[in-house]
């Protein structure tokens, strides 16, 4: 007698892999289940890991500064929920504006301190070579800068450099795509192994 876990896993795997035959109703059912459960899991994680600990702390906290901070957080959070009520839309928009501001600010600061500075440092550490050339060409390819001096020669050279930059982009994106493909193939092998093992056990 197989464990219920194996049967459930096998059934769901077969339902999803039925897509290889056609876009079947069974596949869509499993995909809908995946979306629903993922959303439910995300929501449960938010409630259990963020909201409930915060509400509990709000009930017990004695430090007035901490209590003030918690009240601000909960107040802004409730203002976001007010977005669902048309009359209180502005309140919700203000909460969202703060949230969006913090998100944009954190992303911008993260881009500078988490990407630009470390990547510049790492790039300079490698010296002059193919890597540096590829980085410069890729940066030219994104067209943030255009030389002020114009002319037939300058335009041709500039267009050529940008074309090379786009070629570096295409090649680098291709390698990233290849990396994800390799990960997908590993997952496929894992699922195939699971199916083969389960069926061979049942066969015996």
């Amino acid at each position, binding site marked *: 007698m197989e464990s219920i*876990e194996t049967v459930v*896993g096998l059934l*769901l795997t077969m*339902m*999803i892999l039925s*897509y*290889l035959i056609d876009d079947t109703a069974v596949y869509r059912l499993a*995909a*809908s*289940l*995946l*979306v629903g*459960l993922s*959303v*439910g*899991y995300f929501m*449960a994680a*938010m*409630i*259990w890991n*963020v*909201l*409930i600990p915060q509400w509990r702390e709000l009930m017990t906290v004695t430090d007035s500064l901490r209590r003030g901070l918690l009240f601000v957080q909960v107040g802004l*959070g409730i203002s976001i929920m007010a*977005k*669902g009520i048309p009359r209180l839309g*502005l309140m919700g928009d203000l*909460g969202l*504006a*703060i949230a969006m*501001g913090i*998100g*944009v*600010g954190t992303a911008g*600061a993260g*881009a*500078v301190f988490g990407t*630009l500075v470390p*990547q510049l440092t*790492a*790039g300079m550490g*490698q010296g002059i070579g193919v890597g540096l*050339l*590829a980085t410069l060409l*890729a*940066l030219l*390819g*994104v067209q*943030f800068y255009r030389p002020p001096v114009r002319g037939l020669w300058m335009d041709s050279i500039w267009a050529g450099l940008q074309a090379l*930059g786009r070629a570096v*982009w*295409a090649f*680098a994106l*291709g390698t*990233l*795509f*290849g990396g*994800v493909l390799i990960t*997908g193939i590993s997952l*496929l092998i894992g699922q195939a192994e699971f199916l083969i093992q389960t069926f061979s056990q049942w066969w015996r």
Partner: protein
Amino acid sequence: MLRRVMLAGFLSLGILSALLSYVWPQMILRQSLTELGSTLLAYAAIVGFLSFLEAHFRRVGARAEGWPYSLVTALAALAFLSLSLVEGGLRGSGIASPWTNWVYRHVLLSLEASIGALLPFFMILALWRLVRTRHSTYVLFFVAGVLTMLVAYSSGLPLPSLLGSLYETFLSPLITGGVRGILMGVAIGVVILMVRALLWADRPMEQ
């Protein structure tokens, strides 16, 4: 007008307070901002979850095409959340309760792994469509990049030896440099977006 000014002010306040924690690195400030960010995300998730349910149940009510799938999606989300709340509340173990964990490990992870196993088929199909529909030199570079990775990382096969020292001396620095350039380009784009939002040149709240 007043609404616009208030929105711009709140947005800029959010951006400046996020930047302040980097310019003036104080633990309490950074911790408060992280908490505030996650709290606002959690409340926004509740609004999003309710909208998600409303959209799916509206489709079910209108008997729109594919409504049974909407019903399954909405019920699965509700069932998982209810199970987690009831079981977690009774046992006091939150999301790590046994039944919730069982559904997560044996249903959700199974489905995710199976969808992941379909990924190579989707990706190869997309690559094939790209090659067929776009006749550009850049597509050739893209395919060359894909093949390079497949050859270089086909462990257990003699394929990597085909590239020889070319991979170490030329291709690997080219890939690293190219990806670095892409990352820096994206980072510059994010910074420009932030400055434009700060100066209210872009108005994300009005779109």
